[in-house]
């Protein structure tokens, strides 16, 4: 096991291009409290501020979370909805190409996430429905309107983060929670456990997406 704590260059938040670039070793607490992140993408700071608990936020890193790709992690929804770019020691990977499946990413053996670049968002919101016991996302929806258009990314509900094209199309025409209130997503393939059936999670995706849009519009 290799300890990356000594490599100073891997942590830090930079205002770059049309957004922010966050080093792989940056702690969630630092993302949550960063004036630069709050200025460029307040919803990202809000998301980071609600990961786990204060102890987790003081130690957990963005690179670690994204590389692990836990189905209930919060960051993957932000990475996909904001169409972020993942920089490794080897290459740059687009968000849509990064998350492959349950705990599976595009990273090759020995490949390290050095930074993730997020474009500034015109509007963005994140709403999470927590598991009552673990407080992980049972359903977490990140909605964003950026230069790439409107994207809706869902974490927690399935084995891996996914986009909801029907909601993206509706919001592109009318970025309001009413525009998506009748859009139901299918329950097939969604996670089912004692805290939430697949049908319940499918229902919650629409509820959380609407609340994320309302938050983005505030």
């Amino acid at each position, binding site marked *: 096991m290799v300890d990356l704590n000594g490599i100073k260059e891997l942590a830090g938040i930079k205002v770059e291009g049309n957004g922010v670039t966050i080093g792989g070793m940056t702690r969630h607490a630092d993302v949550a409290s960063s004036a630069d992140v709050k200025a460029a993408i307040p919803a990202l700071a809000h998301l980071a501020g609600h990961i786990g608990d204060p102890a987790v936020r003081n130690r957990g890193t963005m690179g670690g979370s994204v590389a692990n790709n836990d189905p209930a992690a919060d960051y993957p929804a932000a990475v996909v909805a904001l169409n972020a770019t993942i920089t490794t020691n080897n290459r740059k990977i687009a968000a849509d190409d990064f998350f492959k499946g349950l705990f599976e990413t595009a990273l090759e053996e020995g490949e390290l996430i050095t930074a993730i670049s997020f474009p500034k968002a015109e509007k963005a919101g994140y709403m999470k*429905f927590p*598991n*009552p*016991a673990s407080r992980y996302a049972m359903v977490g929806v990140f909605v964003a309107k950026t230069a790439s258009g409107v994207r809706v990314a869902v974490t927690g509900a399935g084995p891996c983060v996914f986009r909801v094209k029907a909601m993206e199309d509706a919001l592109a025409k009318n970025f309001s929670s009413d525009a998506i209130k009748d859009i139901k997503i299918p329950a097939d393939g969604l996670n089912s456990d*004692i*805290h939430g*059936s697949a*049908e*319940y999670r499918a229902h919650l995706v629409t509820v959380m997406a609407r609340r994320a849009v309302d938050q983005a519009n505030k």
Partner: protein
Amino acid sequence: MPELALDKDGKFLALKVDTIANMGAYLSTFSTAVPTYLYATLLAGQYTTPVIYANVRAAVTHTAPVDAYRGAGRPEATFVIESIVSKAAAELEDGLRPSCAGRTSFRRRPSRTRHRWRCSTTPGNYPPIIDEAIKIADYKSFESRRAEAKSRGKLRGIGFSSYIEACGLGPSRVIGQLGGGVGQWESAQIKFNPTGNVQVMTGAHSHGQGHETSFAQIVSDKLGIPIETVEVVHGDTATTPFGMGSYGSRSLAVGGSAIMKAADKIIAKGKKIAAHLMEADVADVVFEQGTFKVAGTDKSVPLGATVFAAYVPHNYPLEELEPGMDENAFYDPSNFVYPSGTQVCEVEIDPDTGVVEIVNHTAVDDFGNIINPMIVDGQVHGGIAQGVGQALLENAVYDKETGQLVTGSFMDYTMPRADNVPSFKLGNKVTPCPHNPLGVKGCGEAGAIAAPAAVMNAVHDALAPLGVKHVPMPATSLNVWQAIHGGN
């Protein structure tokens, strides 16, 4: 399902309850006592019920063995009776929701109930407790809060739970009749040092209940000595007398009473020493606020002087009295103690997610005399939180196909946390227990006994306008949402 028969005026005629209690794979210490003696005997609740038939079957299953948990059978009894009473009140009233007027018309029992083993419940005055709870909960303006919540798309409900319970185990003779193989007395030793400091050894054991404070309080008060001079010793089998322990809300009622008996012996001995020191007749000596006095004179001697004399017996009635000031006592209660009370829970449910939020929770209890109000409040707070856990959050789930425990860690077994409950509103009424020296009733489990019914009654009240008849416990967001949407 229990069945309750009432006449058209709301008078209870009969109650029939059939219960299957899961013991788990093996029987543990209290296992079968919990759903029988500690449950079925209390099914009348606070209501005059002429006839009750209760049949309890204990089942062994491939699940973890169970034993007494906070309340041990009394939360279940309170839940059974208060759920059906709530339903009955709703049906007799306007069919939509329970009202408190309807509930109070159910005739509360008079002060005594005889059981086969000839223990009577002790007096409790229930209507003032209910009135106080209604007032604190601001029940009068609940409908306006319900309407305001509805304007925000949320559903508010209010639920009641009134309890009477038996704790402070207990009269050993009765325990024996019930098949128990032990006594349920408690022990105490009060040992003075020559300097006047005192150690109080108790067979009870504090695991956070604050006995170090409350036991020191009663000794300080009874013997008129500064509380700083009292040290409470517990949990060390090398130094404490043999005791029966802390459970069943018994430490103050039984352990505290043993301490009072030991203190009586200290005072009795002190009187003899004081009589000798004051050259008076022991019959003329009184003990007031730490001082022995000869009635009708200004002669007095503080307790400390008699303690010193007992250890330095130079001027001392050695022919009649041994030196030393070290007395112990064992106290066997003549009856259980019977706290009672009412809780009112107000919830707000988000129909989009099924999440139940407790917006107000009121508890008014009669614990007899209160020795330390802060400690009592703390017990009620903790008990309510555990009851909320039972009603909304906690569940030991086994997979039906494999028998595997699915809730194997706190990542899946939902423990209640501070943000699951509001700040509680508490009140209390005092009807001293007539049969122990302190006049106290146990308070450790009451919060957990009444809370599950109060919360579930509130949930059902909130969802009644949607036609929902039953939400299973725990009322998790999934269960509530499925109840609203017909199990889809």
